[in-house]
């Protein structure tokens, strides 16, 4: 509705913004600095990025949400769009939805049709004319938007100065000038957000999911890593490199993923907790090695930052479609661990937990992260570092008895002698073997070891961390990973409207926890399964391992856009026949 007043009752609490621009416009830099400035000002918030396939140039957009309260995901629609230019903006159709009456700031009035269709409030001003030739428009954008959400100039100047520290005084000053010009222009508009009373940053962190995962791994004791570059996991590995070294560990760039997984096996056999990060195509190449780790009971952790598939797919975009390869992609009977973090901060916990479980249970763990979480930057209350550390059951050989590396024990985990341990000599093998690890093709040995490898995982008590649960009621929402955020958000909205729902977000996907799931589902009459996949991999998984009571519905689609909380609410509305829940953007 052109001309109507600001669009959203929540606008004073919480705002969503897009900064878009073509090659070299610097939209992402502007977004990152805006988020950092917002954090310093005392806001919560988050940012994700949408980029095209080009290495440099091409279209790109920073998607931000800035809020006075903690937030875990985007809202369904964006309130503000600042187009530094409109290059290839059309490619974001289907990915970026503008709220009706959204505010659009742009330099020229060639607004694309699909933007106009959202009936926004366009504000054209030729900001390039306001800038000196060497001043950068994205710094104008930063200053302008920062001012509109009440961030003071000193904060903006500080984040600019830090970011361009390596480029010299001149550049810094020029960028600060451009931001100031933006801030001055902002005075023409009503503020978009009322900032918190205090600048309260010290107990806050600004961190991405990939960084949090790497930090979790270090906290749990990982001191060896090997990886081969692949989007969107490389930033995790590159963050890890210098830090693991500073902790006395190492990162190797392997020649391929077959090498990296086998290097992990070597290091872990040597007693050093080991980790790799990859994405779908790399995981596919690691499966044979992961199976070897299952068979030889060698702990290790692989983080798969999922991207859209199949095959090379869409390397820069998110999806939840490596679930089945992670669960089932090993040949033979190969029980192992699969875990999934449900948010940026949960990457810290879940990765640390994965390391701890892998070490304790002597088996590989696959952590299914996804681009949506891994490359999301988030402001959050500083978490405690997980106090889990790798605890491997080590052998203390005594006397001349041969090492019983694969002996039957009460908890089915056999003590492991690592090289250097006198008297513990043995040779793990990918062949089936007896309790001493000697190759055996006898059915009895095979069955005994198959059973033990499965039982050690099945019998372990994983405690309450297996899933995150909220709420009560006869309607259950089940989601995982990046689909947790819209599920939880929709559930809260439902509750706010008086509709009871419960949410179950399994963090431990394998081994399945039938008893715990049955307890979690007690009294449930309707189930809604939510996932970012086309064929319903998560639904199939749930059906295979659990008894889902009553009416079961699936809400799913693949692709970069992900699942919106509004869609979840609409699906609940359908299931419960409550039309009220369908209104486009409920108060959050």
């Amino acid at each position, binding site marked *: 509705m052109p001309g109507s007043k600001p669009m959203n009752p929540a606008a004073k609490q919480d705002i969503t913004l897009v900064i878009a621009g073509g090659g070299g416009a610097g939209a992402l830099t502007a977004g990152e600095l805006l988020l*950092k400035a917002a*954090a*310093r000002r005392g806001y919560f918030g988050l940012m994700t990025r949408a980029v095209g396939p080009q290495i440099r140039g091409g279209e790109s957009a920073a998607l931000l949400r800035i809020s006075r309260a903690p937030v875990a995901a985007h809202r369904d629609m964006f309130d503000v769009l600042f187009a530094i230019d409109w290059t290839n903006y059309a490619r974001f159709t289907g990915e970026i939805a503008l709220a009706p009456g959204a505010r659009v700031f742009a330099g020229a009035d060639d607004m694309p049709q699909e933007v106009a269709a959202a009936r926004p409030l366009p504000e054209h001003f030729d900001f390039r004319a306001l800038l000196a030739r060497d001043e950068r428009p994205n710094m104008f954008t930063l200053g302008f938007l920062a001012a509109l959400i009440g961030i003071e100039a000193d904060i903006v100047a500080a984040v600019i100065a830090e970011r361009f520290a390596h480029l010299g005084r001149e550049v810094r000053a020029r960028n600060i000038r451009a931001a100031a010009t933006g801030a001055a222009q902002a005075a023409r508009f009503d503020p978009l957000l009322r900032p918190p009373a205090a600048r309260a*940053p*010290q107990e*806050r*962190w*600004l961190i991405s999911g990939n*960084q949090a995962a790497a*930090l979790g791994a*270090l*906290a749990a004791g990982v*001191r*060896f890593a*090997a990886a081969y570059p692949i989007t969107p996991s490389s930033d995790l590995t590159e963050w890890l490199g210098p*830090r693991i*070294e*500073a*902790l*006395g*560990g*190492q990162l*190797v760039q392997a*020649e*391929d993923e*077959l*090498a*990296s997984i*086998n*290097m*992990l*096996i*070597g*290091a*872990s*056999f*040597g007693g*050093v907790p*080991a980790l790799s990060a990859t994405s779908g195509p790399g995981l596919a190449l690691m499966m044979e*090695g992961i*199976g*070897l780790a299952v068979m030889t009971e060698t702990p290790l952790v692989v983080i798969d930052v999922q991207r859209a598939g199949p095959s090379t797919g869409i390397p820069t975009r998110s999806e939840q479609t490596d679930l089945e390869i992670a669960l089932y992609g090993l040949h033979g009977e190969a029980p192992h661990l699969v875990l999934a973090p449900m948010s940026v901060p949960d990457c810290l916990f879940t990765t640390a937990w994965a390391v701890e479980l892998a070490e304790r249970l002597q088996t590989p763990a696959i952590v299914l992260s996804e681009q949506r979480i891994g490359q999301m930057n988030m*402001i959050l209350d*500083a978490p405690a*570092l997980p106090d889990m550390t790798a605890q491997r059951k080590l052998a203390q050989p005594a006397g001349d008895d*041969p090492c019983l590396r694969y002996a039957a024990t009460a908890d089915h985990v056999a003590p492991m002698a690592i*090289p*250097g*341990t*006198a*008297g*513990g*000599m*043995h*040779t*793990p*093998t*990918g062949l089936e073997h007896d309790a001493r690890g*000697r*190759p055996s093709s006898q059915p009895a040995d095979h069955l005994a070891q198959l059973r033990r490898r499965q039982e050690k995982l099945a019998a372990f008590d994983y405690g309450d961390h297996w899933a995150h649960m909220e709420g009560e009621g006869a309607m259950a929402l089940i989601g995982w990973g990046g689909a947790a955020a819209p599920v939880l958000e929709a559930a809260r909205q439902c509750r706010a409207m008086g509709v009871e729902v419960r949410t179950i977000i399994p963090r431990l996907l394998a081994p399945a926890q039938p008893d715990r799931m049955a307890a979690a589902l007690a009294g449930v009459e309707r189930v809604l399964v939510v996932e970012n996949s086309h064929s319903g991999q998560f639904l199939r998984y749930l059906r295979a391992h659990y008894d889902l009571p009553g009416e079961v519905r699936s809400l799913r689609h693949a692709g970069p856009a992900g699942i919106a909380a509004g869609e979840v609410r609409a699906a609940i509305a359908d299931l419960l026949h409550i039309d009220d829940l369908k209104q486009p953007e409920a108060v959050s």
Partner: protein
Amino acid sequence: MTEIIKPADYKSDLKPVWCPGCGDFGVLAAVTRAFAALELEKHQTAVISGIGCSSRLPAYLDTYGYHGVHGRALPVATGLKLARPDLTVVVTGGDGDMYSIGAGHFIHACRRDVNMTLLVMDNRVYGMTKGQPSPTTGPEVTHPMSTADVRARPFNALATALVAGAGFVARGFSGDPDGLARIITEAIRHPGFAVVEILSPCVVYRPEQKQWKHQVRRDALIPAADLNAALELAMNGDEMATGILWREKRERQAPTPPTARTDVAAIAEAFRV
């Protein structure tokens, strides 16, 4: 230890699955002699392999071992040696394991030059899978496994290792376990990645290799003066000559074991706003 260490001390109690007369018995003997000569501590030694008849070797030793999957022994060994520089790491495998499915890792291991020793038991055949041609099989051999009109040139392991950067390159013969033991001893002493190509007959699928004992020219290779000379010999030399072909002269510091300069909590501080 003050007792005298005997080669037999390094043998495990497992009976090899090898066929009677297989060359790999000689390699096992040579390895135990080299270990004894070096007085390696059993629990400080790890022997890593892939899959193949030759890759069964580690289990016949009473050291640590790891019998991984086909073609990936070098990455396993690299991870182990990097994580545990205190260990002596030896890698064993066959011509299929190292030169066919593992060819990429072979090259990258030579480039990376991690301090470990590779023993390739070359019988110019896939023994374990019953006789298919390997990269070192000559074009004269035909086999139902390959009908395509391609006549692959045999893989030249020595030359490839030299070009890829290995600092120690030698050839031994399983039928001369003492000579082989001396070569392996030097290879383990070499402070970097060492490649020993071992002629080790498969008496079942390449019975003509039983003649190798008459054809091998022992100690015919002596370290070349420079890399070009070594390479020329590797390209045009006698395939039955054994000895050390190339040994790069260098002072190599034992890599300083990684040490921690900080802790995780300090690293996490960087995330504070």
